[in-house]
């Protein structure tokens, strides 16, 4: 898994908060729409019922009048109703069996023939404010036994207008609800994102070695503050543990090096004594060499432990891996040549964040390994390439290489693959692996066909003092593995 370069929160629209806000917004909008729709429908039906009831009551009254007084009675009643300015928008029309008008305030029968529906809707022309307008009318017709028909209706333009206004208001309300919901979601997600970003950037700095740093808690005692407090607690514990680990290293080193130092001192004293034969001197020389070798192994073990503990990160800085590789290769080249090997480098500028001494140790171990195991006459090439993902370091030789099945094992401490070359302590590659892990670099042993190619992939260093542009992706666990 290659680390993604893309920050996880490149846009507000991709946060879970925003998605949640959108979901709530949709739910809320649907609820509001349903509610307003129901109110609209109920209001409309109430208004319609009211109109219909009035028409039915009048129609009943007029039908009674017809039964009692006949046609002339209805005509008189209609005239009376028209002249008394009864209810607003009332429409009446009495027609004979030939559909000719006999009485009422409508100029003519508005239909062609006799409609079948009981409730009728039609438009009438009316003069309002000097303009001819079409007003909707709702009406009901009753047919008398003698073939006369009576139409009673109500002009319903007010009702229509009210309905339209109500509908418009409803739509606006729904639109505004959706818009406000979306804006609220965006604002909330931005706010949350800023906090997540602050926490993420603090985490990044801690991972990069600023162990004293803590997550920002903020004034509001919300769940983020609670989370930050909890994480800070863990960090403090880890810090204490790191201190303990350091103290342990220090006392272990002190307790081992102290006696070694005394031992060395006594041997050197002995060496200075005059009365010694050649054999005794030889023994002392060998003992001193053994002390040096023990000391070297101890130093490597301590370095591995320190690299694994991350303590050394505090001293890391931005450095050009290419330049460092060139230096070390040039340091080793004459010695390699003296042993009949060729050692060359091919580098370009590649900035990485690293601990100079430990990276030097990594390079030295890889080169020493190649020199020791590639065999006489081998060609060793150290390459540094920079690319968008980071820097790639390769130490390749054309020696016997390491069989695929042994590669994973080769990185473990105290494993020696070759019985013949037992110069090293068997710790070299484990130290390399530990240093690579410390730098979040990926170490792989690959086939150079023929020979071994050790590849270390580093992440690019951010320029120093560069503003924190994005929250950093959660770092993938550094992996050490073997690739065929």
């Amino acid at each position: 898994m290659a680390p993604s370069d893309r920050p996880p929160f490149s846009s507000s629209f991709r946060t879970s908060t925003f998605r949640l806000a959108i979901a709530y917004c949709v739910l809320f909008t649907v609820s509001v729409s349903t509610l307003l729709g129901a109110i609209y429908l109920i209001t409309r039906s109430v208004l319609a019922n009211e109109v219909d009831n009035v028409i039915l009551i009048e129609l009943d009254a007029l039908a009674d009048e017809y039964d009692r007084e006949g046609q002339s009675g209805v005509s008189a009643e209609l005239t009376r109703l028209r002249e008394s300015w009864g209810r607003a928008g009332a429409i009446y029309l009495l027609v004979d069996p030939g559909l000719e008008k006999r009485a009422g305030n409508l100029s003519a029968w508005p239909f062609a023939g006799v409609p079948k529906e009981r409730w009728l809707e039609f438009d009438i022309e009316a003069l309002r404010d000097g303009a001819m307008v079409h007003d909707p009318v709702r009406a009901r017709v009753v047919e008398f036994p003698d073939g006369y028909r009576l139409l009673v209706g109500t002009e319903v333009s007010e009702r229509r207008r009210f309905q339209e206004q109500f509908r418009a208001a409803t739509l606006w309300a729904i639109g505004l609800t959706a818009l406000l919901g979306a804006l609220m979601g965006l604002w909330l997600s931005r706010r949350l994102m800023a906090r997540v970003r602050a926490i993420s950037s603090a985490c990044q700095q801690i991972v990069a070695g600023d162990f004293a740093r803590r997550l920002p808690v903020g004034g509001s005692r919300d769940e983020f503050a609670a989370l930050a407090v909890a994480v800070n607690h863990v960090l403090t514990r880890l810090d204490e543990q790191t201190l303990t680990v350091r103290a342990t290293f220090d006392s272990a080193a002190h307790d081992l090096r102290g006696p070694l130092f005394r031992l060395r001192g006594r041997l050197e004293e002995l060496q200075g004594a005059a009365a010694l034969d050649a054999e005794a001197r030889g023994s002392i020389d060998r003992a001193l060499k053994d002390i040096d070798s023990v000391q070297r192994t101890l130093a490597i073990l301590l370095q591995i432990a320190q690299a694994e503990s991350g303590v050394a990160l505090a001293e890391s800085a931005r450095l050009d891996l290419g330049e460092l590789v060139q230096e070390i290769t040039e340091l080793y080249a004459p010695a390699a040549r003296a042993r009949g090997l060729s050692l060359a480098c091919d580098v370009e500028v590649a900035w990485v964040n690293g601990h100079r001494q430990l990276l030097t140790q990594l390079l030295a171990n890889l080169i020493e390994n190649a020199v020791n195991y590639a065999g006489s006459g081998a060609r060793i090439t150290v390459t540094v390439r920079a690319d968008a993902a980071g820097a790639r370091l390769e130490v390749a030789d054309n020696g016997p290489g390491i069989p695929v099945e042994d590669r994973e094992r080769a990185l473990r401490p105290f494993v020696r693959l070759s019985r013949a070359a037992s110069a090293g302590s068997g710790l070299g590659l484990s130290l390399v692996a530990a240093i690579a892990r410390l730098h979040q670099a990926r170490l792989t042993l690959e086939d150079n066909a023929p020979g071994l190619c050790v590849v270390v992939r580093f992440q690019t260093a951010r320029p120093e003092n560069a503003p924190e542009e994005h929250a950093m992706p959660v770092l993938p666990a550094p992996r050490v593995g073997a690739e065929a």
Partner: protein
Amino acid sequence: MRLLLIEDDPEAARFVLKGLREGGYSVEHAADGRDGLFRATEGNYDAIITDRMLPHMDGLAIVQLLRQQGCDTPVLVLSALGNVDDRVRGLRAGGDDYLTKPFAFVELLARVEALLRRKAGPQATTTLKVGNLELDLLGRRARRDGREIDLTSKEFTLLEFLVRRAGQVVTRTMLLEGVWDLQFDPQTNLIDVHISRLRHAVDRGFDRVLIHTVRGAGYVVRDDGP
């Protein structure tokens, strides 16, 4: 030359004292941090050698206090601690050199000598001379007997490091630290090959050899005279 050794381990102190006295120095000994600081402040020493982990007071704290008091006596810090960054911390605290235990005694002697010479004053100069070897520090060119010596940049730096310390023993570790800025202990003897190339360039064709090997210690650039 008066030296002060601050070391709590009596056995270690015994042979360091013995070795330094055999090397011709007059050495006083303090067995803990408090006594060490007191003597360092009161006494007039040419150099101070202090252990890092001391009873009552850390060696680095002593260096820091001395520097705060304006004392510029060179200090060599000895340490049995294992951290890769201890050397950096030691130098940052004001130490002039840092040596990890266990070390060969010649290493300590060479470093004490280098400290004492440094105290004698760094010369602001543009040319260095040993016998008929002449180094032009500005042009980074070396001449012997008037004839130009062909050197790479690194070889010149190496030669300059040795010539600046003409007459002093320079150990391989000092060369790794001073010329390559490396604090590590290579398995192969890298320095010898570089020195032999330098020797090839500088001494070949001349009767008088300038670059000498000091057995079991390191190298010295010296003109033995006719």
